[in-house]
């Protein structure tokens, strides 16, 4: 036997109280007399000085003790355990950020989910076990498998869903594997479409449609010359009604910006404004009574840093294509023309390949590869078809449509990894001999229309940005929560130590393996993070929640989809106390109270005589 409500046993504390009362109570008022011996027989006179009498075992005492015991048992709800039943509840919790949206009662679906699990576990009794699984791109087991409710409740109290929109299938699969014969419960804030949830699940949705305002995007750019910042924001009203809000931006304790905003139904308000340089961090908040979800109404941005790329254009002057190179470089931000020694990227002729092979800087060789000789004579031109390695970021967004690639020379003498080719010629390739990227443009720009096509600036820009990405440090400072974070460690720091780096946020930290290019998987939570190498800070970045699908709360709904009883899993079994037990307990308690009352009443009458 166990007690579904053990606190009810506190009622049994009444038992010693009753004994205490019977032991110490003065039933009659005191009266001092002389000659007590005249009133009583000798044997009834008590010893002088005694103040605590022996407990009188009276019917009243026994009946009151019986009533208190019965009431204590009633309140504690005794249950019988069937030892053959494994009571196990596997709960899949929707970890989407919309679970934190507040409804009309200022409760979140998250609150209601916790209360529902708590209710079920208390009903199941203390021997029941629970497994808690949070959905997400990577489902996480919050508690379990088969944890006690005491342990799980502690973990569940700290649960705060923050994920962007994601599929639940992997979490459902994990739950079914763990459920065995237990009950499967999926708690979310919107009823899934029919048939998407496995029939073995009981589904409970606690959401309610609500108006919401959210940041759709935020970008902080920096003018490398003036070091002044510019913020571009887009804020959306996810409601069918007009809304107003105040946007406040603070840096530490200083208010940097405050805007009053008016939104039409479903409208998006873009804005751009300058921010002073050097403020390092900016927290933007939306204040509006129509904002149900705080998660997407508060973002933290880190001030970007200048990552100027130094480029040396070493093409002879005049040389075909040199003006086109200069034009593109002048149009790009964060570029500085530098001497050959100080450049991160060198652009030149075939002579670059013959330069110091240990030079670890990026290089771009622009054709013709051979200015004379048989290869020059064998050069051809082609209009395609062009084959591009789309995996390489260098050709990202590049379209060769309409391009006449001329001056194409055979490249058998140069081992190249083809990025753009027109069989059998490699048009754009990366040297396989160089440890650092060395690209070849197998083209004669004096004969080709490449520089006049849209592909040309895109190709050069991709190369410049790829080279910029290889510079040490963070490539950007503000990310979405589901975005990959990339960090380039300098060669000096890479070889300086073997200890892992630390990623810190608030009071938490995690180790990051030391590597040249560090890729941190999506952190899936908002916050400010600092990457440290021992005591030295390598960089600080922020992640923010931007997810239009989660910010739109209009589709949230309440509802229940019951489990399909025909499925193989056995139901959740709760051993209820039999009705006759309740009747006996209640009957005994009432009978004892009535009998006690009758005895006391009789005594009062006798006393009156």
């Amino acid at each position, binding site marked *: 036997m166990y007690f579904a409500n053990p606190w009810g046993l506190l009622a049994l504390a009444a038992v010693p109280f009753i004994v205490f009362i019977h032991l110490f109570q*003065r039933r009659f008022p*005191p*009266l001092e007399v*002389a*000659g007590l*011996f005249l*009133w009583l027989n000798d044997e009834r006179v*008590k010893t*002088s000085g005694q103040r605590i009498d022996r407990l009188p075992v009276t019917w009243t005492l026994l009946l009151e003790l019986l009533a208190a015991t019965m009431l204590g048992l009633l309140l504690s709800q005794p249950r019988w355990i069937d030892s053959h039943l494994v009571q196990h509840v596997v709960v899949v919790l929707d970890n989407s950020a919309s679970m934190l949206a507040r409804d009309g009662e200022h409760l979140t679906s998250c609150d209601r989910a916790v209360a529902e699990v708590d209710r079920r576990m208390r009903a199941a009794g203390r021997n029941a076990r629970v497994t808690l699984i949070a959905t997400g791109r990577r489902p996480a087991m919050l508690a379990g498998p088969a944890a006690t409710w005491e342990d799980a409740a502690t973990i569940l109290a700290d649960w705060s869903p923050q994920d962007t929109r994601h599929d639940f299938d992997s979490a459902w699969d994990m739950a079914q594997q763990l459920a065995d014969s237990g009950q499967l419960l999926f708690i979310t804030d919107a009823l899934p479409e029919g048939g998407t949830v496995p029939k073995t699940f009981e589904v409970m949705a606690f959401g309610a449609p609500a108006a919401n305002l959210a940041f759709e995007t935020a970008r902080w750019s920096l003018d490398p010359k003036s070091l002044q910042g510019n913020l571009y924001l887009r804020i959306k009203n996810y409601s069918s009604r007009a809304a107003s809000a105040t946007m406040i931006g603070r840096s530490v304790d200083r208010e940097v910006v405050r805007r009053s905003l008016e939104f039409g139904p479903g409208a998006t308000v873009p804005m751009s404004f300058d921010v002073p340089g050097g403020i390092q961090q900016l927290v933007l908040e939306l204040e509006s009574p129509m904002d149900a979800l705080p998660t997407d109404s508060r973002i933290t941005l880190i001030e970007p840093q200048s990552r100027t790329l130094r480029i040396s254009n070493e093409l002879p002057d005049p040389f075909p294509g040199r003006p086109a190179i200069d034009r593109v470089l002048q149009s790009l931000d964060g570029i500085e023309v530098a001497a050959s020694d100080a450049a991160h990227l060198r652009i030149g002729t075939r002579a670059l390949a013959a330069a110091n092979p240990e030079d670890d800087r990026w290089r771009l060789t622009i054709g013709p590869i051979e200015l004379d000789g048989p290869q020059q004579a064998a050069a051809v031109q082609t209009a395609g078809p062009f084959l591009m390695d789309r995996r390489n970021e260098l050709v990202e967004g590049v379209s060769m449509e309409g391009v006449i690639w001329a001056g194409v020379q055979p490249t058998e003498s140069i081992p190249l990894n083809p990025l753009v080719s027109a069989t059998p010629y490699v048009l754009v390739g990366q040297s396989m001999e160089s440890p650092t990227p060395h690209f070849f443009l197998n083209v004669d720009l004096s004969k080709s229309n490449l520089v006049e096509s849209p592909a040309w600036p895109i190709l050069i820009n991709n190369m410049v940005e790829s080279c910029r990405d290889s510079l040490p440090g963070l490539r950007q400072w503000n990310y979405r929560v589901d975005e990959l974070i990339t960090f380039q460690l300098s060669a000096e720091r890479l070889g300086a130590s073997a200890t892992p780096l630390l990623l810190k946020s608030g009071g938490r930290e995690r180790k990051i393996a030391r590597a040249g290019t560090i890729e941190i998987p999506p952190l899936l939570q908002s916050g400010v993070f600092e990457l440290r190498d021992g005591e030295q800070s390598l960089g600080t970045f922020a992640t923010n929640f931007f997810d239009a699908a989660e910010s739109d709360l209009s589709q949230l709904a309440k509802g229940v989809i019951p489990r399909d009883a025909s499925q193989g899993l056995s139901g959740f079994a709760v051993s209820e106390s039999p009705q006759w037990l309740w009747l006996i307990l209640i009957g005994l308690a009432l009978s004892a109270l009535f009998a006690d009352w009758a005895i006391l009443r009789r005594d009062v009458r006798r006393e009156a005589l």
Partner: protein
Amino acid sequence: MNNDPDVRNAVETFQLGLPRLPVAGRSGELLGRAAGNSLEFQEHRQYLPGDDIRHLDWAAYGRTDNLIVRLYREETSLQTQILLDMSRSTAIGDGAKSRVARQLATAMGLMVGAIGGHPTITLLGDEQPLRQLNRGDFELLVSLEPKGRISLAELTMRQRVLLKTHSARILISDFLYPHDATQLIRTLAAGSTLFWVVQVLTRFESDPQPIGGRKLSDVETRDETDLRINQISIARYRSRLHRLQEQLRAEVVRIHGCFVTVVAESGLMEICQRDLCKAGILRPR
């Protein structure tokens, strides 16, 4: 206590009910009621166990086969010893019992003094030796509170009461303590020329009424018990009290003394007029 209005009123209204004998001298000025050793024959009566066999009238026995005792009037001296119970039991209730007991003792002492006697009041309390007040000290009775825990029976058994021989003796107590009446009275009356006993009770002690359940606590012994004071328990109480009083009365009468019970709440004057005059202890001036 000399200046107590009730006491003064009583002294002015009443005198002790002693037979006067017109003889000269200090001794024999007053005649006691008890049989004594004087030569004045008083009366015959039936022999009772305990009587001095020297006083048997053998001639009468020879004539009648009945044991007859010859009683002689004893001469009393002016020495009067008033024994006042100062145990806690006399302070019960609202203090009426203690007040009346002290008033009685004072009034009787003053009455003795009024006829030229030498009264002393012996306070039967816990003090050892027992405190005695002479006539000039009676006023002290006003401030003396009855606090004794030792009952008169125990004092007597321990022989702590110093009794003056050939003195008139007046005992004032409630007698609400377990005792052997025979031993108590004979001890206290020994050597006295006159022995009066006044039992002072409260009205509740004398005539209790049903008051329901009470936790009774003995003021002297601190014994206690729960009891419903109803008609049944009252009847039992009265029976026991009556037996106690009859035993005392029999012992006192045996020595030609006088026993009377008074109710304190009646007040001194009513007690004197109704109870003590009726018993012959007092008579109007």
